[in-house]
């Protein structure tokens, strides 16, 4: 029972780390970025290449995955994304889904279509018994990293100067510019940060979720569920949503395997009926 809860929390945390970058771009920047999974995949492949080809420690791969994905995000934002901030949402959707397909084809070409596997350092594999609860070491690690990240993200957005500038830039671009905020810079940094988070999520998820060129399409639906249930205007909303969905998904598959896969969608529908704007919505936006 508690093992299932633990697994659910770990899975939820992983969903959060993958989706929270999307919360930043989609929610805070108001940009429909369906290519989010492509950045996550980039992070995953950075890890795979570093570990399997060069034998670099897993712990170094995590920051590297963040930085590389963030850089890719920055370059793409400056060259492509920035022209579409004012575009209708449909254009943004078409554009970003195009990026997804290009990313899939490129990955397939360079890395091959097969499933990529990494071998974790010994202290992260296996599991231990804590008062009768089976605790997977890697899952515990995931929970710790993700919880720390969620906290940091919340603090950055609510307490720092950068956070308030970002919120101002999103709410009213013209006024923010008038106040002397360098909106393009703020957006570029935010986008890079969101992409970096995705990359980190991809690096951490490679062990549990697997990694192949179809990663962005396979998990897009999960990111979108998390963000739509959680709402897009805060970080705590998607955090709670991811936890809830993770636990419900794992518990559903454990207790009622016949309909297990459907539980997560049923939950999403119920949540959206009860709170159409997400768990913590800022008014009726």
């Amino acid at each position, binding site marked *: 029972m508690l093992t299932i809860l633990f697994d659910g929390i770990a899975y939820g945390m992983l969903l959060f780390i993958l989706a929270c970058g999307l919360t930043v771009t989609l929610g805070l920047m108001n940009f429909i970025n369906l290519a989010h999974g492509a950045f996550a995949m980039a992070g995953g492949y950075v890890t795979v290449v570093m570990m399997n080809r060069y034998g670099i420690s897993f712990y170094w791969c995590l920051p590297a995955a963040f930085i590389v994905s963030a850089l890719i995000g920055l370059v793409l934002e400056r060259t492509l994304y920035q022209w579409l901030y004012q575009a209708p949402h449909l254009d943004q959707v078409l554009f970003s889904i195009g990026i997804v397909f290009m990313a899939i084809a490129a990955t397939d070409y360079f890395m*091959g*279509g097969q*499933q990529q*596997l990494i071998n974790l350092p010994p202290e992260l594999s296996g599991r231990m018994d804590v008062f009768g609860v089976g605790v997977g070491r890697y899952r515990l690690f995931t929970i710790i990293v993700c919880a720390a990240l969620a906290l940091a993200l919340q603090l950055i957005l609510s307490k720092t100067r950068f956070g308030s500038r970002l919120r101002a830039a999103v709410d009213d671009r013209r006024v923010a510019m008038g106040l002397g905020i360098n909106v393009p810079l703020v957006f570029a940094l935010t986008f890079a940060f969101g992409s970096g988070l995705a990359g980190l999520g991809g690096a951490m998820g490679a062990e*549990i979720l697997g990694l192949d060129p179809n990663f962005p399409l396979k*998990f897009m639906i999960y990111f979108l569920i998390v963000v739509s249930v959680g709402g897009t205007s805060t970080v705590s909303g998607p955090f709670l949503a991811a936890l809830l969905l993770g636990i419900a998904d794992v*518990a559903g598959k454990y207790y009622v395997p016949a309909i297990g896969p459907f539980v997560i969608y049923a939950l999403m529908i119920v949540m959206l009926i009860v709170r159409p704007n997400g768990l913590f919505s800022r008014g009726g936006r």
Partner: protein
Amino acid sequence: MLNRRMLIAAAGVALSCLAAIPAAAQETIKIGLILPMTGPFASTGRQVSAGAKTFMVMKGDTVAGKKIELVIRDDAGTADQTRRIAQELVVNDGAKVLAGFGLTPLAMAVAPVATQAKIPSVVMAAGTASITKASEYITRTSGTLPQYSLPVGTWAAANKIKKVVTLVSDYGPGIDAEKWFTKEFKAKGGEIVEAVRVPLANPDFAPFLQRVRDAKPDAVFVFLPSGAGSLFMKQFADRGLADAGIKLIATGDVTDDDILNSMGKPAIGTITGHFYATAHDSPENKAYVAAFKKANADMRPNFMSVGGFDGMALIYAALEKTKGDVTGPAFMAAVKGLSWTSPRGPVSIDPETRDIIQNIYMREVKDVNGELQNVEFQTFKDLKDPEKADAK
């Protein structure tokens, strides 16, 4: 003057030689190889095409006086594309034989084309039993899931395994595997504690594995397509199922030779049943593995590749028998009852079902000179597909 005349004569000779070459080359037989070369099943396509190409490297590109040409097309794993490409290959490109087909629905989509155009079609990968029933013109060189799930049941019952949980992917092949393992295992006195079906697009195996652990069986029987299989393997080890005394028995898809080596330690000790292992000990296989690695940049051949290799072997053998006649009825008549020695061991084509008859091996994953290999330890000889044998 003399010189000039000689020159003209020489030119004439040269010209007639040139003319003679295309005349011989016109006897080209095109084989349309339709495979998922991109998308989620790209590794299947890569392996099958690499196997087929290796055959042509080893045995040359002429048979019975005809030149063989492979035309490889990508269907990305979607059935409507497979069918469209099959039609194009037959109608526009004049392909005389179709081959490949990575997945069951893809092979099924081509069946009507094969029947209408009387085009022989060689299934090199897809493994659901019913495929060869879909058209008189379909034959197969891979294997069927019932064919290699059943012996795993026989083996389990004979090896002190009493209680088993089955865990399969929830689609055609998975259900085939579950059905035939269960049938055989129960008939031999075993008990199935629980039958778990995992959705095909499943990101995390944690809840299913926990369920298996809590059911406390002696073993868990698994079929998963090879990519998902490797993920499963890691989580199986991580969850400590092996430490809890639960054995992992599976079809060979789970310990696919293509990725087995990167699975690492967790895979060691897994017992699987299948028709081919890279480590199969025979001179034919040694030659095959060496040629394959040379032709394909050190890629490791898996069962898919040997399906492609034997598909070409079947086409060559049938053409030799018909003396180059590639029309549907003649070709299919030649196919029935063919037998040859494949890298996997002796194989033949069942004259009644056009499906392959072959040995199924029980294997254990072991570390052999620093590489993980499926090491065979028991052979079930000359098995037919039980599904069609049963239907009679």
